[in-house]
C-alpha cells in the first residue's frame, strides 16, 4: 500500500482489499510515528472499519480514515484541546462535522495535537508537547492545527480536520506542505468545536491535494440549526474543480509582502502569480491600508472572546479539579494548574481588554478596525476575483526558537488573521521550498466564493508539482 494516498486512491484500495486493512495500515504507520501528531488514537477505529466492511456503506467516505483536531468533539473520545484542564473529560456528543463524517462512512483514526485551546502557531503550547514537522523533525509544524497538518504530510492520515481562528489551518498547511482551507465564516457548523474565538473561527479541512479538500467540504459544509451563525448554501465544492482560470483577475495586496518576509517566500509567491499569468490570468497590485492594524485588532478580539469562553473551565462540572478550601479557591487552583502559560496570558489580556475603563480603548477600537479591514477587502475584491499572498512570511521555525518571545510568535498570523477578521474564505497551497521547507501560497476569495478559490487552487495544482513532493525524513 502506498504511504500517501488521495481519498480516491484510498477508496480504490478499500475496494481491492477492505476498510479494515486500510485502517490497520494507517494505525500501523501511526504506531511508528516520529512526529507526535496524534494525542489520542481511537480504539474504535478498527471496529468502525470492520462494521463498514460487514454491513456495507454507500456514503462518499465509506471506510476512509480521517484525523480530527483535538478541539472537535467526538463522542466517547477525549477532547483535550491540548490542555491539562480537560483531563478526564470525554464529550457525550458529536460535533456537527463529526456527525456528517460518520454519516458519510468515515473512520476516525484519532485526535490530533494542537496548541492549547488553539492559542499558538506551533503546537508548542500543547500540554502534550510539540509535534514535529515531517520536513524537519527539529522544526514546528505550525499551528494551531499542527498535529492535523503533520499527520497528513507524514502520510499518517489521508486528510484531516482542523480549525482556523487566525490562520490555524493555513499556517500549518503552509509549514507542512499540504493544502488547508479556511471556509467562510458560517459555511461550516461550529457545533461541538470548543470555542477559542467564536466570531473568527471555522472548521477547515487539510489534505494532500485540492480535490480532497473539496470532497471533505461537500461532506461537512452546510447549515446546522444548532449553530445560529451557520448559513444555508447550495455550493457543490467538487464541481468547482475545473482546470481553467482564463479571465481570472488576481489582486496582489502589497501589504502582505511586508517587512521581515523571507526572500524565498516572496519569490515563490510571485512565481506562482506569474504561473497564473502564463495560464491566462491577469494580476494587479491592490492596496489595503488598514491591514497593518489587523493583527492587533485580531488579538484583542480573539483574547477577549477567549477569556469569556474559557471561564467554563472551573473544575466544577468536568475535567481537572484541584483541591481548595472553598469553591473560589478550588477554581483558582484548578485554573492555575490546568492552563498553560500562553492560555493564561491570553485570558488575562482578554479580561483586561474588556474591563471597565479599557473596554472602549481596546475592545471597541478593535471592533472598529475590524470593520475597516472588512471594507478594505470589500473594496479590493470588487476590482479583482481573488487575492493572492504568502500564507506566512517565513517557513517553519525551530522548536523552542520563538516560544519565549510571544510577540514574534504572534507575527506568524500577520497574513492569515485579516481573513478571519473579515470572515472570508482562503486556502493555502504548496508553491515552493526554501532550504527543503515548504512555502504556502494563500488564495483569498469573497465570502462564500469557495468555488473560485478552489478552482484557482486546483488549476495551480494541475499545472505544478509542489503538492506531489513528500518529506524525506519520514518517507
Amino acid at each position, binding site marked *: 500500500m502506498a504511504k500517501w494516498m488521495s481519498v480516491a486512491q484510498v477508496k480504490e484500495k478499500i475496494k481491492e482489499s477492505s476498510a479494515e486493512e486500510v485502517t490497520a495500515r494507517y494505525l500501523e504507520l501511526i504506531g511508528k510515528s516520529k512526529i507526535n501528531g496524534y494525542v489520542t488514537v481511537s480504539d474504535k477505529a478498527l471496529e468502525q472499519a470492520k462494521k463498514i466492511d460487514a454491513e456495507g456503506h454507500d456514503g462518499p467516505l465509506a471506510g476512509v480514515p480521517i484525523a480530527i483536531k483535538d478541539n472537535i468533539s467526538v463522542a466517547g473520545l477525549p477532547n483535550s484541546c491540548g490542555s491539562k484542564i480537560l483531563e478526564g473529560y470525554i464529550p457525550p456528543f458529536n460535533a456537527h462535522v463529526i456527525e456528517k463524517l460518520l454519516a458519510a462512512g468515515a473512520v476516525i483514526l484519532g485526535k490530533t495535537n494542537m496548541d492549547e485551546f488553539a492559542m499558538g502557531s506551533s503546537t508548542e503550547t500543547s500540554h502534550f508537547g510539540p509535534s514535529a514537522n515531517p520536513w524537519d523533525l527539529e522544526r514546528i509544524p505550525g499551528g494551531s492545527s499542527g498535529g492535523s497538518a503533520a499527520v497528513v504530510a507524514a502520510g499518517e492520515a489521508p486528510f484531516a480536520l482542523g480549525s482556523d481562528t487566525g490562520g490555524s489551518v493555513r499556517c500549518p498547511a503552509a509549514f507542512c506542505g499540504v493544502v488547508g482551507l479556511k471556509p467562510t465564516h458560517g459555511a461550516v457548523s461550529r457545533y461541538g468545536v470548543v470555542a477559542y474565538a467564536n466570531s473568527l473561527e471555522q472548521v477547515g479541512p487539510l489534505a494532500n491535494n485540492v480535490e480532497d479538500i473539496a470532497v471533505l467540504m461537500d461532506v461537512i459544509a452546510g447549515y446546522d440549526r444548532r449553530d445560529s451563525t451557520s448559513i444555508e448554501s447550495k455550493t457543490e465544492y467538487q464541481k468547482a474543480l475545473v482546470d481553467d482560470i482564463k479571465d481570472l483577475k488576481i489582486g496582489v495586496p502589497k501589504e502582505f509582502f511586508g517587512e521581515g518576509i523571507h526572500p524565498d517566500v516572496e519569490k515563490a509567491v510571485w512565481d506562482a502569480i506569474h504561473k497564473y499569468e502564463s495560464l491566462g490570468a491577469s494580476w494587479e497590485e491592490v492596496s489595503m491600508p488598514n491591514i497593518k492594524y489587523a493583527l492587533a485588532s485580531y488579538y484583542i478580539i480573539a483574547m477577549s472572546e477567549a477569556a469569556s469562553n474559557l*471561564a467554563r473551565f472551573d473544575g466544577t462540572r468536568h475535567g481537572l479539579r484541584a483541591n481548595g478550601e472553598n469553591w473560589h479557591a478550588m477554581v483558582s487552583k484548578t485554573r492555575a494548574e490546568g492552563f498553560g502559560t500562553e492560555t493564561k496570558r491570553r485570558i488575562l489580556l482578554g479580561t483586561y481588554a474588556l474591563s471597565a475603563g479599557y*473596554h472602549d480603548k481596546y475592545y471597541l477600537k478593535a471592533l472598529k478596525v475590524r470593520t475597516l479591514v472588512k471594507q478594505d477587502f470589500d473594496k479590493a475584491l470588487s476590482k479583482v476575483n481573488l487575492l493572492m499572498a504568502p500564507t506566512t512570511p517565513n517557513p517553519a521555525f525551530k522548536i523552542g526558537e520563538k516560544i519565549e518571545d510571544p510577540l514574534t510568535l504572534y507575527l506568524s498570523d500577520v497574513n492569515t488573521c485579516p481573513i478571519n477578521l473579515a470572515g472570508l474564505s482562503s486556502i493555502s497551497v504548496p508553491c515552493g521550498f526554501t532550504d527543503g521547507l515548504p512555502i504556502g501560497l494563500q488564495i483569498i476569495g469573497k465570502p462564500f466564493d469557495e468555488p473560485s478559490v478552489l478552482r484557482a487552487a486546483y488549476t495551480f495544482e494541475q499545472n505544478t508539482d509542489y503538492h506531489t513532493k513528500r518529506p524525506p525524513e519520514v518517507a
Partner: protein
Amino acid sequence: MAYENPDGVKIGLEIHIQLNKLKTKMFCGCSTDYHNAAPNTHTCPICLGLPGTLPVLNKKVVEAAIKVGLALEGEIAEETQFHRKNYFYPDLPKGFQITQYDYPIVSNGKVVIEGEDGEHVVGITRAHMEEDPGKLVHIGSIEKSKGVLIDYNRSGMPLIETVTEPDMRSPKEARRFLDKFRNILEYLDVFDGNLEGAMRVDANVSVHWGTRVEVKNISSHKGVERALLYEIMRQKNVIRRGGKIVQETRHFDEGRGVTISMRTKEEAEDYRYFREPDLMPMRVRDWIPKIKETLPELPDAKRARFIEQYGITDMHARSLTSKIMLADFYEAVCAKGVDPKVAATWTADVFLGELNYRDLLISSYDGGTIGFIHAKDPEVKNSFKVLGMTELVNLFSEGKVSDRAAVEVIRTILDGTEEKTPSQIIKEKGLFKAEDDLVTKAVAEAIAENAAAVQDYLGGTEKSLNFLVGQVMKKTKGTADAKTARELIVKELKE
C-alpha cells in the same frame, strides 16, 4: 387629594420573572417542566455549558417578551441583540450569562396601579431577556452548611428582567405594582406565579430624595413590602441620628424581617459585557403586528367591560379581574344565565374570601373547574366547578337557601375531599331554607312557650329578642333565615 409622600420615598423595582409557561428552555430543547423532577434530570450539553456547545435562541421566548412589552405599552426593539455578562459562580455553567445589555427588547413602558391617591403611573424603563442560572442547594442550613449541591434543571430557563422607574412612593404602591404586574403576565399566559422561583425582585429605595440602597433577591410580594417598610425605617433613623446613607446592596432576611448589608458600591463587580458572538441578531419588527393581534384583553380593559356588561361594582370587577382564571370562571358562571350581580358577590366576596382564609392559591382553570393549591404546600389541592357556583347562585337567587347556608356550602366544598354538588350538600346537611309557614309556626310556638322572655322584651330588654330568635332557629334546625325570623317575632309582638 394628592399624596404628599412625607418621607420623600422613591422606590424602583427590578423584577425577574421566569417564562415558565413556555415548553422549552431559552437556548436548548430541554423541558421547562422540572419543578417536581429529580435534580439535574432536565439538562443537556447546552444548558450544562459543555465545551463546544452553542446557544440557539428559542423564538417563543422572543415572542413572549414582545407580548410582555406590548402589554406594558413599551417600545419594541427592531432586532434581538444579546451580550455576555461575565462572572464566576458555581450555578453558572458557562462562566457567563447570556443577557441583553444596551439594546433591550422592550423600553419605555408603563403600568397603571391603584396608588396612594388614586390612579398612579409607574414607568417601565426596560425589559430584557436573559437565561436563568442553576440553583444551589445547601446541605443543612445556610449558616451551618456542610456543602453545596448544584441543580442545573433551572439553568437556561428563560427570564424577563423588568426595570421600573423609581416611581413608587410607598411599600404599598410597590406591592400593588407587583400584584398588577404579575396579573398582566398571567393574562398573557407566559407565566405561572405559583411555581417556586417564578418571580424574584430587587428593590431600590431612598428617602428624602437621597442616596438609593438596593435590597436584593426578595421572593414574594409580601416580602417586598416588608423589606421596604424595614429599609425605609432604617434609612430614616440613620438620617435622624445624623448619619449618611451609603450606596450599597443589602440582603433581606425573610425570617427576621430585616435587611443586612452585602457590599458597597466600591466593590461593585465588572461584568465585562460584550456581544454574544454565537447569536446572530434576529429581526423582529415584522412580528409585532401579528403578536399584537394575539394579545388578550388585559386586566384594565376587562375590568371596565365587567362593570359595563354585568352591571357590577368597580370593587367587584377589580377583584374578579385580579386573576385571569377567576375572571374566566366568573364569566363562565354568568354565561349559564345567573344573575351576574349575585354571582359577583358570591365569587368576589365569599368564594375569594374563603380561599384567602385557607391560603389557597388559584392555580388552574380548564373552562369547567377552577383549581387551587395551598400556598405553603402544593400537595394540598382542591377545586370548584362552574356548575357548582351556578347552582348555588341560582338557589340563593330563588330564595331556596339562606346566605348562611350558601356560605356553608362553599366551605364544605373547599374543605371536602369528595366531589359533591351544592344540592347534595344542602340535602345531606338539611340546609334548605325553611318554608315560610314552618317559620311562622315556629315563631308562634316560641312566643307561646316563652312568656317570660316575651315580657322582658316588651319591657325593653332587647337581649330577649335574640333569645326568641334562637328558639326559632332551634325549632327549624337552623334552616330559617335569622333576619326573617326576627322580623316575624317583632311583627307578631307589636300586634
